[in-house]
């Protein structure tokens, strides 16, 4: 009469496979990240007859039209993102398309278009697997744009190749 194999004998190898699987999953998942480290700030201005304000990826402002740039009320700064991943990995950058980002003070709005990044288009992580991504944009100001604090948000995506 054959005895039935004990459960511990049949499941022991299975346990090993499961452990290997979990180790494999834990060892490599989630290695590539993108995180925002600094917001995009246009500082302050008076609207006048309206125009545009271009904030470069270096954080420098320039204006067109009747806008007057103001130093008081907050400094202008480009948005900063931290990119991490595999050393020397190449990634492409996807920015918001025009017409999709609005800043609002609750009742009035301004359009944010012309997003630009540095590096532009494609970036390469350092040997340590890190990079800094800077984002600028162009703000469209209406004639006699209502005074107030305007806020909004946007998303950036990086695709690793």
């Amino acid at each position, binding site marked *: 009469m054959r005895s039935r194999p004990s459960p511990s004998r049949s499941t022991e190898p299975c346990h090993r496979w499961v452990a290997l699987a979990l180790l494999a999953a834990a060892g490599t998942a989630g290695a590539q990240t993108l995180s925002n480290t*600094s917001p995009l700030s246009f500082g302050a201005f008076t609207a006048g007859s309206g125009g545009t304000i271009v904030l470069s990826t270096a954080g420098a402002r320039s204006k067109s039209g009747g806008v007057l740039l103001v130093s008081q009320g907050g400094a202008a700064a480009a948005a900063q993102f931290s990119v991490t991943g595999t050393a020397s990995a190449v990634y492409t950058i996807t920015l918001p398309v025009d017409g999709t980002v609005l800043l609002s003070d609750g009742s009035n709005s301004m359009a944010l278009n012309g997003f630009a990044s540095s590096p532009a288009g494609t970036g390469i992580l350092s040997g340590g697997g890190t990079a800094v991504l800077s984002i600028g944009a162009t703000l469209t100001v209406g004639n006699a744009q209502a005074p107030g604090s305007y806020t909004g948000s946007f998303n950036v995506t990086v695709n690793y190749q």
Partner: protein
Amino acid sequence: MRGTLAAGALLVLALAAGRPVDAASAGASVTVRVTQSVVVQALLGAPLSINDILDALRAPAGPSTGSVLIRLAQIAPALTQGVAAPGFAADAVPGMQAAMAGALTLPLSGTLQRELVAAVSLIGQEAGNDAQPSITVAFN
């Protein structure tokens, strides 16, 4: 045997899922402040802080405060001395026509110290001081 096969399949799935992430997204906030233009009855030729101007403008009118011109004069006596400033930039100020006699402005950038402000008045002689002139404040 069946359990071993299942565990093997699990390992394959785990390895596939554990590949480096192909894409990552993150959001950022955007802020900007639109400041108000200031309308005053004064010819401002000396720098003062924008907060001083706004405080004067917003202060309730009354016997102790008087007109905006007087309030500003109390804040910055130098304003009443008609200190002329070089570097007129009338056409650079939105809505401003040619500067009239006595109307002053300062360069819009590069020459004013931080936290200072200059302004341009459009008081018309025919309108007199009782009229509400438009005035554009230029900051740096």
